[in-house]
């Protein structure tokens, strides 16, 4: 049998991978992983709340003022702050995991270590966050 033939899918049924013992709540590592995986829900919610804002923007200044009043109400504010917390957790963990992606080496310059790459990614996140705040706040145009 050739090596190529050996890679063909086998008709033998196999069981799906089994989760490790105690998954998903037995160890802090598992719990953090589950929390990260579950951030898919608040991320989608964040996009829905953002879309509502864009929709309000297309309805003119009256629609926008209505959206501002709705979002400033205590229940919506509590929901928004909780969602923002989840989005921040997602962002920090995603970028921290992203430090494992090998960087491009430039000539004789040595590749940065994984920890330095992680710190640089988080610094980039803070810089972009501040840039968006400055752009949308109008402070540049005062």
């Amino acid at each position, binding site marked *: 049998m050739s090596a190529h033939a050996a890679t063909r899918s086998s008709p033998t049924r196999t069981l799906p991978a089994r989760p490790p013992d105690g998954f998903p709540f037995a160890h802090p590592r598992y719990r953090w992983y589950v929390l990260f995986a579950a951030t898919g829900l608040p991320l989608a919610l964040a996009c829905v709340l953002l*879309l509502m804002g864009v929709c309000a923007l*297309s309805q003119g200044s009256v629609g926008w003022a209505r959206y501002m009043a709705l*979002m400033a109400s205590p229940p919506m504010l509590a929901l928004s702050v909780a969602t923002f917390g989840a*989005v921040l957790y997602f962002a920090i963990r995603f970028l921290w995991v992203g430090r494992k992606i090998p960087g491009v080496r430039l000539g004789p310059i040595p590749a940065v270590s994984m920890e330095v790459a992680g710190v640089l990614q988080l610094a980039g996140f803070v810089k972009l966050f501040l840039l968006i705040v400055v752009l949308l706040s*109008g402070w540049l145009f005062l």
Partner: protein
Amino acid sequence: MKLIRKLEPIFWMLFGAGGFLGSLILPGLFFMIVIGMPLGLFGDPFTTFVRMSTLFGNPVGKALLVAVISLVFWHAAHHLRHFAFDIGLHRFQAPLSFALYGLALAGTVVTFAVVGAL
């Protein structure tokens, strides 16, 4: 299920792009539009309306909004699909996959429509 498996590289690409936009751009946009502006931290509603219309009324602003919102929908769908498998929902693989990617597709269509109306 064959179709989902065939399209897996595309879903993975959308997942990766959505992850980076969701971690680098979404927190700032969300904080400003959904929390900061309603609290009046950056001016009254009329001032913020004029500023936001100017920033997002042009093609570059619209493209940014469409990219961030729709790709994060795809990221969330892919992430939740694999999370469901992690917690042992393998037997619902086909309905879950179609439901989650279907929602992401619907979200993308709505995003294009809403941002296009700006």
